[in-house]
């Protein structure tokens, strides 16, 4: 299918689906009338508009000879997102001094040619920077190490 391989086709499908979902979800709120707009009015019509423009994008992608979409960098996407989520969950439980090294070390594996020593040094320097800037400098209330 050409539709799934081009940037236009994929985004058109995404926008159409997203618009339909939003319009459906907006129906759970009162729509009201134009003169007295309810909380569902604006999002409902936005959803409909998005569905319409999204379908136009699909139509456009079928008519034009479109390029192939770039390969999905699933490795970078997964590792970076994971690094952020893990450090967020460590920030309040294990503390800043664990969360920042975890963030730096995990995210390092998204790059090519990872070498352990430079990564460890980067992690140490950035953790020291985070401590100096956010704890000493800006006096943020973040647990350092297991609630210390």
């Amino acid at each position: 299918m050409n539709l799934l391989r081009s940037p236009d086709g994929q985004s058109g499908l995404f926008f159409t689906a997203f618009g339909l979902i939003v319009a459906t979800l907006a129906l759970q709120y009162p729509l009201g009338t134009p003169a007295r707009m309810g909380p569902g009015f604006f999002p409902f019509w936005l959803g409909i508009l998005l569905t319409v423009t999204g379908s136009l994008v699909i139509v456009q992608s079928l008519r034009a000879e479109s390029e192939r979409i770039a390969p999905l960098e699933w490795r970078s996407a997964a590792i970076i997102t994971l690094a952020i989520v893990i450090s967020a969950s460590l920030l309040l439980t294990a503390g800043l001094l664990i969360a920042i090294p975890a963030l730096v070390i995990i995210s390092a594996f998204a790059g090519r040619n990872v070498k352990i020593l430079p990564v460890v040094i980067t992690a140490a320097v950035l953790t020291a920077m985070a401590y100096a800037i956010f704890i000493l400098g800006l006096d943020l209330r973040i647990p350092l190490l297991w609630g210390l």
Partner: protein
Amino acid sequence: MDLIANPSLGFSHALEIKNILFCFVGVLLGTAIGVLPGLGPLATISMLLPLTYALDPISSLIMLAGIYYGAQYGGSTAAILVNLPGESSSVVTAIDGYKMAQQGRAGAALAIAALASVFAGTVSTGVVAAFSPILSNVASSFGSTEYFSLMVLGLVAAVILAHGSLLKAICMVLVGLILGCIGVDASSGSYRFTFGFLELSSGLEFVALAMGMFAFADIISTVAEKTGSGPAIHKITSLWPNKKEFDAAAPAAVRGTLIGSVLGVLPGGGAALASFAAYTLEKRVSREPRKFGNGAVEGVAGPEAANNAAAQTSFIPMLTLGLPSNGVMALMMGAMMINNISPGPQVMTTNPDLFWALIASMWVGNVLLVVLNLPMVGLWVKLITIPYKVLYPAILMFCVVGLYSIQNQTFEIYIAAIFGFVGYLLVRMKCEPAPLLLGFILGPMLEENLRRTLQLSRGDPWIFVTHPISAGILLVALALLLVTVLPQIRNKREEVFSEAE
């Protein structure tokens, strides 16, 4: 009277030690990230947005603005010395600037770029000071009907300035407007799209959205390819241009300033477009067009003046009408809203100190930049050698802790992580994130003004066309859309964008 009183009010704030310091920090950071190819003003400003919760609005806006125009300077340094334009606005500077560097005139090219920029900065600061009050006076008589139309115009502008397909940009604006609906509905008090998360009741956090879409998404899409190999850096010998170079550069800088000031104000204009237009103009008016591409001084002075002038005049629609003309302006509006200042024509009357201080600081910042840039060129060049491997974990670190600091909770970090992933998918589908952000910012105001207008007209939508000012604004929006869709102009636009890429 006002013409003198207002700027002097601005300077009295901009020249406070504290604000000079923030201006300095802003232009310093801006120059640094302008030099670094891996980091642009959008990501940096989103990274620093949490700080604006802690600072007072004047200082934070002065700093953020400094980052924006500082980046134009830094971008040209990297373009001239290593042929690596740090910013899209300095792509054309690289053409002749790098050639000059190869011919041993690197110092002269840098000096001309800096002098042209500071000249343009000074003139365009005057333009901002002169034209903003006029526009804001006109707009202050607007009611909800006119406001709604004005915002539609702003969104249309956002669509036009996006690269690539117009339809996709419209979709992105709509997605942004939809995301803006999240939270408690202002008029009925009911929770919309919060899915049971109390943290979402005051709406989606703007900083989390901006960081996700600009900083995280950008890292994901570029981290694999950016394995840094050291570029060749040209030595700087004499820093001063000779008389012949100076004479050729001066008129080019004046023309660049003019074209940049005009293109910056137009919705959809901006620094990148201005520098390209200035380069084309210089080539046209030159008696020896063949010089261009082989180290023409005019090819450095014109575009550099233009991109700096445009960077500054693009503040005019944001400050006077509440219409952001590009992604950076959207972030600046977000910073104002974080400080409970709603952008629009009333800013000038309700916060005159902020308004004039920001304008005065632009001039202060330009002077700081010259003082900072020329003697420290060697240091900036060293920055280019910082590998991306070290840079992106640092960006992640600042973002994660910054997101936490907004509310002292980790919820915003998760939100940003989600938008980082979604933002990457959107970029991969060739959808620009900036229109989405503009939609998100204007969404709540658009809904409120639509509600008020329709309440007054008892549900009759024709009110937008029967009110003359509103009809005029909508007509401009329609004309802009039609003009962009017309084939000849569309081809020209694609050409401009692809060369500015």
